[in-house]
């Protein structure tokens, strides 16, 4: 019975997240459209509301092309590795008190583990398609993800120190119910580092070098088409959502809000996630792309030292006060 209930919960979460992905693309096209004084999708449905569904159906029925010289098993497995890794991390996200599929003690580490697995999908996609553009995109993404994963992990150590736990639910509860309890203020350096590495981890502008259109066609997914390309797309948007959720849980107080919402406790959590998503898109519409050496310099020479300083300061303060 408990297994059945669990399955139902998993399916509900899966469907909701898929819908979220579909409408996140709509959200992105609309926002960027309006920021560039265009209208964005308008044709399918009222104000283009059915556009994501049309896109989904289209990509589902498109021809699936596998290049002749590609490494077939790896080529087919790569998008699935990406999607599975991203979907698995959804299991530990606490949407509200008790609204979590797996309340495990190492929630934060689990998400790191899964995000490092997702980079395999990208790298293998680049290698297996046997194309220079894809291969360079894969290499860039690998170097970028490794570098920024360190900065991101270190930036969250401050949060772990303050809350004394790796369990995401307990991290939220440690921040209390008020706006002053949020780790955004005491961990402002950590948040700064986290936010930048979050953009780099999800390969978003201004760090979207792995798929820089002007240089690499479409980077690691150049050779992909149809459903497999759509799977990469889904993985990217779920990745954005997971990163936004970590940011919300660790710095913005999770599901806590100015007042409790009856019937639908995750409301504040979702609003905060969409705030992050909006900023993602806002940045995409505003900033130009970094150069590759600038990206590496920023990661290794600025973010990692800053995060280390933040850890030392937080630990000292905690030892003195706590």
């Amino acid at each position, binding site marked *: 019975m408990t297994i059945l209930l669990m399955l139902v919960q998993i399916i509900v979460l899966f469907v909701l997240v898929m819908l979220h992905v579909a409408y996140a693309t709509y959200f992105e096209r609309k926002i960027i459209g309006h920021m560039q004084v265009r209208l964005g999708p308008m044709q399918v449905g009222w104000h283009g509301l059915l556009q994501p569904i049309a896109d989904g159906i289209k990509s589902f029925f498109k021809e699936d092309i596998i290049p002749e010289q590609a490494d077939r098993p*790896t080529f087919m497995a790569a998008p699935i590795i990406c999607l599975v890794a991203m979907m698995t991390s959804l299991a530990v996200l606490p949407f509200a008190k008790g609204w979590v599929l797996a309340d495990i003690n*190492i929630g934060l*580490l689990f998400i*790191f*583990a899964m995000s490092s*697995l997702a980079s395999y999908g990208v790298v293998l996609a680049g*290698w297996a398609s*046997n194309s220079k553009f894809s291969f360079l995109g894969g290499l860039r993404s*690998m170097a970028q993800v490794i570098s920024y994963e360190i900065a991101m992990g270190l930036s969250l150590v401050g949060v772990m120190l303050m809350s004394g736990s790796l369990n995401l639910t307990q991290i939220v509860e440690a921040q209390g119910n008020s706006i002053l309890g949020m780790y955004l203020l005491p961990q402002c350096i950590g948040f700064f580092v986290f936010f930048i590495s979050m953009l780099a981890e999800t390969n978003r502008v201004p760090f979207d070098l792995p798929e820089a259109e002007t240089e690499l066609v479409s980077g690691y997914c150049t050779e992909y088409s149809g459903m497999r390309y759509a799977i990469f797309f889904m993985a990217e948007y779920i990745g954005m959502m997971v990163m936004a959720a970590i940011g919300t849980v660790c710095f913005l107080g999770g599901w806590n809000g100015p007042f409790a919402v009856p019937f639908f406790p995750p409301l504040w959590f979702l609003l905060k996630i969409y705030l992050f998503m909006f900023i993602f898109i806002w940045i995409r519409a505003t900033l130009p792309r970094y150069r590759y050496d600038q990206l590496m310099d920023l990661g290794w020479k600025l973010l990692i030292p800053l995060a280390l300083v933040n850890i030392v300061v937080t630990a000292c303060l905690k030892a003195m006060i706590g």
Partner: protein
Amino acid sequence: MFTQIFFGYCALMIISSGILAISLRNPVHCVLMVLVLFFHMAGLYLTLNAEFLAAVQIIVYAGAILVLYLFVLFLVSLREELNLDAFVPSAWLGRIIAVGLAGGLLFVIPSFILGEKGVWSMSAIKELTHTKALGQEMYSTYLLPFEIAGLILLIALIGGLVLARREANIPLEPEAPEESQTCGHPNRKEVSL
């Protein structure tokens, strides 16, 4: 019951992916098999309630070290397979030695005795969570070995830096003639990076 089935599955997968990792021809596929192996090892740690170790296994081994292996494989030219002379001249002699070794290992298994139980009982670890228990032990009882391990790692890190660093006043060596690389892919047309 469930734990035993899970253990059996993990053990089977570890052994088979280990064998595949040394027998597959394509080095990238070998690395992927090692990745599968690491995941199942992390699964075994979970059955032992060592969840921190399981997470670190994946983050460090799968997420960092194996990715570096992939990097090296991609960047090193692997145009032709290396063929080394076998250490043992005859294949059958080698098989006999291997069977003998396996028999010897099986023979000594019965003399394996469980060690003494530590101070940490299963319930104590569950209550405090594995991460905290590990941290407390590491920073109190085993502080000195921990610091020594840290120092060794630091030395290795500095050594790597010194080796990789080029002196500023030594002119760069003239660029080697363009070398073609196959990036570990059997079908890959030669790519020059």
